[in-house]
């Protein structure tokens, strides 16, 4: 088994210092905003995520090595090019696991934690799930193991990927140079991802390389006329970390318990968040469609008003 360091654990002191730096910069410039209890919850969620990951590592690492040991097509070794290929393929896998994390309620139950703050700052980057191991997310990296990339390399590049994503959780940085915005995930692109404005829902899933969103049709640029508003479509009314960590699981169990058929039970797990058999709640697609209709009605009204004005003149 290849021995590689854990990049995220090594980066923790830098994370703490950078959160502090952003806080002081935001206090002086007004370009970043924090709230004490929100920051506390985000950081507690980060610590809890690390602990839960450590407690279940034996299963996730064991599963990865079992797949690699039994089903690998090639032995790619540990040359530099393997790390580069692993990084790109892991970033592609991240795109899909992240996209499914928004489009499948079972996976959303774990990922929703990361979106539960109404603030957007570096502490939000650390607001991570405690329950990701209990979702199908673990399966998305298996093609890399089957291809013959040793799991230790995948874990290492995945850690680098997560470190990259830390700095993009900020309002303190506007836009990067155009070429950079085109190729890479940036604070601007990720602000859109965290926004709950109907226009911005379910967009910009990339980890590092923005090409995946451009390729798979999920890219939405930040619009200067539509300021991002952060959080969930229905925000949490609590800072309690236990409720933050488990609320969507509780919602799923309630729905499974009261479901009238097995088909509904399956769809409560696999359909997008907000799906119900009777359409009584709204999915992000429904919210966006309703918003588009309101926008069209508004522009129709504006057009009629303009026509009346022209006719009167």
């Amino acid at each position, binding site marked *: 088994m290849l021995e590689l360091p854990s990049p995220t654990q090594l980066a*923790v002191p830098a994370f703490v210092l950078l959160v*502090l730096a952003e806080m002081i910069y935001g206090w002086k410039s007004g370009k970043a905003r924090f709230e*004490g209890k929100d920051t*506390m919850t985000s*950081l507690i969620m980060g610590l809890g995520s690390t602990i839960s990951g450590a407690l279940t590592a034996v299963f996730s690492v064991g599963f990865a090595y079992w797949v690699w040991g039994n089903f690998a097509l090639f032995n790619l070794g540990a040359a530099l090019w393997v790390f580069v290929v692993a990084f790109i393929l892991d970033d592609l896998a991240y795109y899909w696991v992240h996209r499914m994390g928004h489009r499948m309620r079972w996976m959303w139950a774990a990922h929703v934690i990361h979106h539960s703050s109404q603030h957007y700052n570096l502490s939000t980057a650390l607001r991570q799930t405690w329950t990701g191991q209990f979702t199908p997310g673990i399966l998305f990296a298996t093609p890399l193991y089957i291809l013959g990339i040793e799991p230790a390399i995948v874990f290492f590049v995945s850690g680098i990927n997560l470190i990259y994503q830390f700095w993009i959780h900020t309002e303190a940085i506007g836009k990067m140079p155009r070429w950079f915005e085109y190729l890479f995930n940036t604070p601007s692109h990720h602000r859109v991802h965290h926004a709950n404005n109907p226009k911005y829902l379910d967009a910009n899933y990339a980890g590092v390389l923005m090409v995946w969103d451009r390729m798979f049709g999920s890219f939405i640029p930040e619009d200067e006329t539509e300021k991002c508003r952060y959080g969930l479509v229905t925000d949490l*009314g*609590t800072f309690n970390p236990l409720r933050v960590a488990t609320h969507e699981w509780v919602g799923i169990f309630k729905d499974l318990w009261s479901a009238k058929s097995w088909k509904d039970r399956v769809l409560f797990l696999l359909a997008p968040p907000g799906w119900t058999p009777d359409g009584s709640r709204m999915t992000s697609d429904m919210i966006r469609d309703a918003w588009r209709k309101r926008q069209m009605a508004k522009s129709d009204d504006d057009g009629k008003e303009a026509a009346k004005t022209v006719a009167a003149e």
Partner: protein
Amino acid sequence: MDIVQVLGSLISIFILALIASKLFPSVSKLTKERIERNVTRFCPNIGFTDSDARIFVSDDYQSGVLVFPEPKDGIALLTALGDRVVVRHIPEAEHVAKRIDTDTVTFQTGDFTQPAVKLILDKLAADELMDSIMRVDQEEGHPAHA
């Protein structure tokens, strides 16, 4: 991850949260304008104007209720969470509202993500709020629970 790392992390977390609360003190208050703005955002398909909706703000400015003009639309319940606002749309408010005291009305939504909300009002306003909710109840023909 060992116990020293966990304790060190906890100390760092408390220090950072304390600095955040000192640098960004939460002085947020719910006002009628803020309630209207947030309800318009949260319930975009329910039309109302500030003159036909009734708005109640708790004396501590930490919670509020907007009663929609159409009884079928029910109420919007708002709470200040830190410096932000959380909204819940409750079509059948009579199921969740309860008069606790002459000047206190609570809303127990049974929502895992929204603890009970308490509105402290003067007696007249508390009467008016409960009347508004009962009006919704009577016009809709729901069984009264409050």
